[in-house]
């Protein structure tokens, strides 16, 4: 019984984190049709910026987090303008240059911060005991912020004018242009939002894990998995598959061993692509 509770708690935690990481990734694909392999690097940037402001400069937690997220968002905009815009026609090249950028980001972090994990203080100290799992307030905060962010994104896209223009570009580029929407501005904005979401995840997770130069890889792979399983371009699909992945991994970790959860997403991608390539909730047309 307590095992089930453990799985529920931890699964929800990871599922929420994956959701936060993946919505940005699927957003940029749905809107601009590109796969941004530097997505994980924004997550990493958020974590390191958070570390710099909080631990090195001693700035107040909330301000640090805000600055880190804004910084990451700006980085996203710069990447979009300088590196992705010139390559946009050729999808293969976008893959390549964003990959190269991710590797470059890794090296930059290595030079500035060294290869050791950097410890970041929890934002809130204290914890809750649920079953056998001690859930720290930090982890609860991560969950709550993830959901608030996703909800805010949802509201933004469905109700505001700018949000609707993003949606319009995603659905039908030509029609959107006809109505007077400027796609370049939309791409820039979307990338900024996408990076901000990834950066938020990074800032939140840094106290729980640690900030290392290689940390951009794992969120990228998970986001990729979530988005493929859920269906490229589908926000609802991303949320659903993120939660499923979170539970599945926790289940495997508890019932089998800690070595296997990292294989779940790999097997899931292969199964989905072989059996139902458009994903759980993706659109039929490719």
């Amino acid at each position, binding site marked *: 019984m*307590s095992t089930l509770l*453990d799985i529920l708690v931890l699964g929800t935690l990871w599922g929420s984190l994956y959701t936060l990481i993946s919505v940005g990734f699927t957003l940029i694909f749905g809107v601009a049709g590109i796969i941004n392999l530097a997505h994980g690097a924004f997550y990493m940037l958020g974590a390191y910026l958070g570390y710099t402001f909080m631990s090195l400069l001693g700035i107040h937690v909330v301000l640090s987090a805000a600055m880190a997220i804004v910084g990451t968002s700006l980085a996203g905009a710069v990447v979009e303008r300088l590196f992705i815009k010139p390559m946009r026609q050729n999808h293969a090249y976008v893959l390549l240059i964003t990959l190269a950028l991710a590797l470059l980001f890794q090296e930059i972090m290595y030079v500035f911060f060294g290869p*050791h994990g950097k*410890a970041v*203080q929890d934002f809130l100290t204290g914890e809750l005991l649920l079953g056998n799992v001690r859930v720290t307030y930090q982890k609860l905060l991560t969950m709550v912020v993830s959901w608030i962010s996703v909800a805010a994104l949802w509201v933004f896209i469905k109700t505001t004018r700018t949000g609707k223009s993003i949606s319009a570009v995603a659905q039908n580029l030509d029609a959107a242009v006809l109505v007077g929407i400027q796609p370049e501005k939309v791409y820039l904005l979307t990338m900024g939002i996408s990076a901000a979401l990834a950066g938020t995840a990074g800032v939140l997770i840094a106290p729980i894990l*640690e900030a290392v130069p290689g940390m951009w890889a*794992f969120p990228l792979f998970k986001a990729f998995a979530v988005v493929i399983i859920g269906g490229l371009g589908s926000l609802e699909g991303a949320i659903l598959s993120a939660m499923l992945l979170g539970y599945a991994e926790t289940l495997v970790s508890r019932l089998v061993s800690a070595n296997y959860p990292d294989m779940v997403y790999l097997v899931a991608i292969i199964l989905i692509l072989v059996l139902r390539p458009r994903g759980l909730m993706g659109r039929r047309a490719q």
Partner: protein
Amino acid sequence: MKRKGFLTVLGMVFLLALSTQPSQAANRDFDKAKTIRIGSLGPVQLPQGQGIHNAAKMAVEEINEAGGIHGKKLELFVGDTEGKPEKGITAMKKLVLEDKVDVLIGCYSSGVALAIQPYLPQYQIVYMATGTASIDLTNNVKKEYEKYKYFFRNMINSDIRQQKWAAKFLVEFVHKKLGYKKIAILAENAKWVHQYAPALKKDLEDAGLEVVFYEMFDVDVKDFSPTFAAIRGKGAQWIAQIVSHAASIPLVKAWQDSQSAPMGLCDVQGMDSKFWEMTGGKCLGEITYNFIARAPLTEKTIPMWDKYVKLFGTNPVYTTGFTYDGVYMLAEVIRQKKSLKSKDIIDGLEKISYKGVLHPEIGFDKESHDLLEGRYVMPMVQWQEGGKQVVVWPEQFKTGDFTPPPWWKK
């Protein structure tokens, strides 16, 4: 026709080139050598590696200040292995082929040392391993002496020696003194643990303890919350961790957060003085054994420790003591034999009995070239309030009392 001629020329070129043999490195003539070159291997970015390189540097400088070896100065070259076998091979080749060192010392990972071993007979160079614990390294020497005789190890092997010491600590201190019976074993699955962990489990069960949890986890794992939740669920009273290469920092943080049970056996990264800062103080209460401590293991230990702290601004790590003694032993043998030929160095090392910082009578087994039995001590060190590292066991080297973690009721 043109093609045939082309191939013939190719063949002749091939044969011609094969006849030229590139030059050898080690085994130089002692009298003709201007300096004596030592190659130090280890991961430059990790504390264990820095411990190797710093110790070698300190020893080399001291020997040079005392006049060198028959007037010849020692020169130190550093090879960065990054703790990985592939990089280790590259680093070793740089030292042997480019820097042309006379002897090799160091290395922290057994995997790296194993990858390097087959090259020793190719390059005919002596290698003193000072940070690698796997027994395979010295078993290889025993099995194929002619091939691997160039290899010596003055560190304490994990498969037998560390494992027996671990069992001793858990039975004599944790069980008999503290009264605990239910033990959890949480080990990384690296080479040095493969024999260690199962043998430890058996020894504990033979002594009447109950191993309620046993897992060998992948070195890449970063999320340990489910693991500690499971350990807590099994009612463990003590966690025996065995980690070196894995992600100690997240592991220790998850352990502290889980408030499951006291943890103490072996956390190599946890030996480092900066570990307190790196975990944000979350290693409070963790115990790990170390191979060096600021305790009078011999009369040379504390002066060496204090000088090291003064020179490098940080405490010695476990590789420091072994490397420091290792460099001195190599120098001693070269001095005695007045030779840089590997066969002479090997002969000298097989016969040596040296008073180092770790033990008064360091020597090697003639068949396996492993450190002789009984010529070592492994103090258990606990992280206490304020980031202090206190020796809590064995009794004769204690610098303080064992203090359970603040949340531990029993």
